[in-house]
């Protein structure tokens, strides 16, 4: 044990992972039982796939699945490339002080809590004096319009997290050998050609990794934000599985049922993760799993 200090350091995250990620998995069994707190996990009656069947036959199942998948898919399609483009733009800034200011301004929204963000969105979108309505010269209550919900959700997500998301790409770009840019300059490449031939290929492996990770949580629509922006009038597009799990599990105390729905969600995510990894590894020789 030459490096026992390193093993000791490693022990801390391992213990935390086991306690908070693995031990709770024992509780997954309640998805297959009729859980009664007084009987405990093992003592509750085994019901097999009953809760899953009930979820699949629920009248809102189709709508929830469609909303969850579409909201995630659109989020991925819009939110995924923007941090890459942003990092490529920031990387071109030559004045370090200005660069730092731009980065700070872009990171800042990430540190605002979802609760406050949603409050701000409501104020911006208010039909009476909201910023967006003032700019458009209209008086529309966007949050009551189901066809506007996805745009609001995705656009606000980009505003909040694009700056933060580009950190990892900026770190990758900072590792590029500067002589590559110089070689490209001597070769006669324009700024755009340097980006396309030096920056983008360097970002590709990281972008694929991020894409796989994002695709792996395709079904994990953030519950809080949807819940806070949801109104009765936009439910047609804002009714998603995460909110349903919360309603069933916490509000209605249907622990077994909500666990089954959550497990279904996770299983779909896992399958998606493997599919995307397979496709991307074939497309780019990069295999992360």
């Amino acid at each position, binding site marked *: 044990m030459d490096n026992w200090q390193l093993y000791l350091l490693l022990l801390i995250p391992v213990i935390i992972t086991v306690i908070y990620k693995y031990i709770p998995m024992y509780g997954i069994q309640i998805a297959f039982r009729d859980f009664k707190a007084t009987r405990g996990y093992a003592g509750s009656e085994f019901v097999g796939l009953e809760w899953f069947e009930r979820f699949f036959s629920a009248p809102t199942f189709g709508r929830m699945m469609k909303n969850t998948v579409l909201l995630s898919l659109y989020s991925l399609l819009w939110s995924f490339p923007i941090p890459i483009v942003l990092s490529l733009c920031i990387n071109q800034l030559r004045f370090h002080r200005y660069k730092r200011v731009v980065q700070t301004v872009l990171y800042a929204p990430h540190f605002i809590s979802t609760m406050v963000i949603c409050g701000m969105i409501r104020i911006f979108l208010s039909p009476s004096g909201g910023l967006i309505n003032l700019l458009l010269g209209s008086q529309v209550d966007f949050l009551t319009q189901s066809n506007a919900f996805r745009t609001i959700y995705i656009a606000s997500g980009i505003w909040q997290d694009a700056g933060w998301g580009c950190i990892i790409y900026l770190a990758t770009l900072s590792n590029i*050998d500067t*002589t*590559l840019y*110089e*070689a*490209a*300059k*001597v*070769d*006669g*490449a324009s700024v755009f*050609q340097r980006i396309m*031939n*030096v920056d983008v*290929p*360097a970002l*590709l492996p990281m972008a694929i990794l991020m894409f796989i990770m994002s695709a792996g949580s395709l079904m994990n629509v953030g519950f809080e934000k949807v819940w806070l922006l949801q109104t009765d009038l936009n439910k047609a597009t804002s009714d998603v599985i995460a909110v349903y799990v919360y309603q069933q599990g916490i509000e209605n105390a249907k622990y077994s049922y909500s666990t089954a729905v959550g497990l279904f969600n996770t299983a779909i995510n896992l399958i998606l993760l493997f599919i995307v990894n397979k496709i991307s590894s074939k497309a780019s020789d990069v295999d992360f799993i």
Partner: protein
Amino acid sequence: MSEVILKGLKKVYDNKVTAVHDVNLHIADKEFIVLVGPSGCGKSTTLRMVAGLEEISEGELYIDGKLCNDVEPKDRDIAMVFQSYALYPHMTVYENMAFALKLKKVPKDQIDKKVREVAQILDITQYLERRPKALSGGQRQRVAIGRAMVRDPKVFLMDEPLSNLDAKLRNQMRAEIIKLRQRINTTFMYVTHDQTEAMTLGDRIVIMKDGYVNQIGAPQDLFNKPVNLFVAGFIGMPVMNFFYNSKLLQEGGKYYAEIKGVKFELSEFQQKALSANGQKPCEIVAGIRPNYLSVGSGDLKAKIEVNEMMGAEVHLHANCQGDEVVMVIPTVGLKVDVSQGAEVSFNTKPELIQLFDKESGNNLIWYDEVSARENHPVSKCYKF
């Protein structure tokens, strides 16, 4: 004609640090010039100014008669080989070599012809479809040279291209560059910190220190006629021996060098040169190359501290009254005891002694004030 002229070139960074001071250099068409010096001497900065990768703070740069201070690198008709090869990692060798031509919108068939032609010269045809990561250091360096060659540039710039290679491969590549130079016959500017590379490759060498050019000259001139202590110490391996607290004496109209109490009557040429310069007796630093010392006889004495057996010769590190002396002695016919701790007598020929002024460090014979003042220092010429 692709001559390069540097007129009073200066580089001052934003933090007011001057990296290059007033460099004046005239590189003739098809000349191979080597910029050499220790780290931070400004050689790479000078090259980068020629390449257009660094802004020129002051002075003028002419390439092929055209003022190029504000010309974009791509329009200077230059090609550069970098120390780290700077090959695009996602491109194949072929794509790397074709990239510049592709950007120039050269027809595909011409690109293909050119790339394959150069690949054949450099013996990398079999690697054309490989990515740089699948190549060895030497192969990558060939690709980097090939990428520069396909452009048929007026000036070839090389920034320490062999520094990342191991000693054996470096020697091999050095020979390849010499052959390549004969083949492509264009103007070369080559930066290195390795004096062996400089000596073997350059038609002329520019020695730099602290942003100043210390001497410009043919390799043999730099070796035999160093203008100051720095050049004398930098060129030659092992480095020149310096005997501090030596004296230049003048007795009966003749000059003598006194080293460690031993008087050497200087050669006829040295006498004439010192007289021509009106040299007065003074304190000097005497410099003698390790190969110019003969062991076994003479009035100079030294105690051997380290004995390095190199095969054909032995390098003796000895102490001569406080000054460290290195002697290179052939092992064939060696009759003297050169073991550690032994005391040896040694001698030299007076014409092989370099005489440096103790105060300024300038060579009393070869330092030329006029060229030094004009910032293109060369060894002084004599017409007796």
